């Protein structure tokens, strides 16, 4: 099942981007054309499509949530 994942665009070109997610993973070739995201933008990704842009405050909240999950699990996620 697909879950939405929040992350940061670390590089972008022609509507495609590499996104590093707060869960520690990353995806290349995310389609960011719908949200017109640039490098440094926080995005919400569904499958391989960025559907939303997150404010820095919301991004901090999401990152903190993942940190707490990783701590609760006893080991950081990859």
């Amino acid at each position, binding site marked *: *099942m*697909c*879950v*939405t*994942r*929040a992350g940061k665009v670390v590089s972008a070109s022609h509507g495609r981007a590499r996104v590093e997610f*707060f*869960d520690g*993973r990353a*995806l290349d070739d995310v*389609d960011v*054309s*719908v*949200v*017109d995201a640039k490098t440094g933008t926080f995005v*919400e990704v*569904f*499958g*391989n*499509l960025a*559907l*939303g*842009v*997150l404010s820095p405050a*919301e991004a901090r909240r*999401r990152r903190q*949530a*993942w940190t707490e*999950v990783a701590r609760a699990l006893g080991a950081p996620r*990859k």
Partner: protein
Amino acid sequence: MKADGVLFHAKHAFMPNSLGYCGPDEKGQIQRDLEGDRSDEELVQTLQKFEAAYPFLKLIAKSAGRQVFDYSVPEAYWIGNRLLDQVPVSDFYSFSHHEIRGRDPKKVQQVFRRLDGTAPPHHTFYVMSTYATAVVPDGPNVTNEARRKIAGVVDDCRISWGTVRKVRKGELQVEVRRVSLDDGGLSLTRPAVKSVRYNPEVKPFGAVRAGDVVSIHWNYACDVLTQRQAKNIARYTDADIRLVNRLMKSDEGRK
């Protein structure tokens, strides 16, 4: 624990995992087990690491008083069956807040409030409602190209189904109804034929033939459905679309 429930679940979880969209990095284990028709403890442990799918199974199983991998449980989640109707709204609400990692609590509240507690713990509803509550810039005024992409990802991510018209090597020609997005919301298109991948090493695809109805996830044929399952997935998908369109008709659902 019924082995066929494990494999049924694995078949539907396989493709998004292999694409890196969810679940653990299991280095090909799911595919090997599916091809070997093996349902062992190692596969179960892998499936338990999926961030959303496994918690959903636990929710449905608890409400129905069944084991998590009883066939009817993943069937309810991926395809739809009456077990969905047995999940108390209060349990699903609490689950949505506490079990789905990283989901915005405000969006969860919006979904339940706007739908008067009728949200089902069905995979397709989860997929479609995720789009409906995403912060899409320009909201309903997105361009046609953006709509096409959004409808495409929703269509790929939900479990769709179709009737096999032709069997080719590694590819099925399947008559399907895709998801469409326009001013009226989500809907299904008229039937059209598209190609999906399949793995003949995975049972029962070695014997798949024209006329079979298959479930599809990310353009991959997961399983051959029974007539009952084909009716159920159509029925539950229609219900999901109606609910999500109600959600989207509210400005609140878009914020």
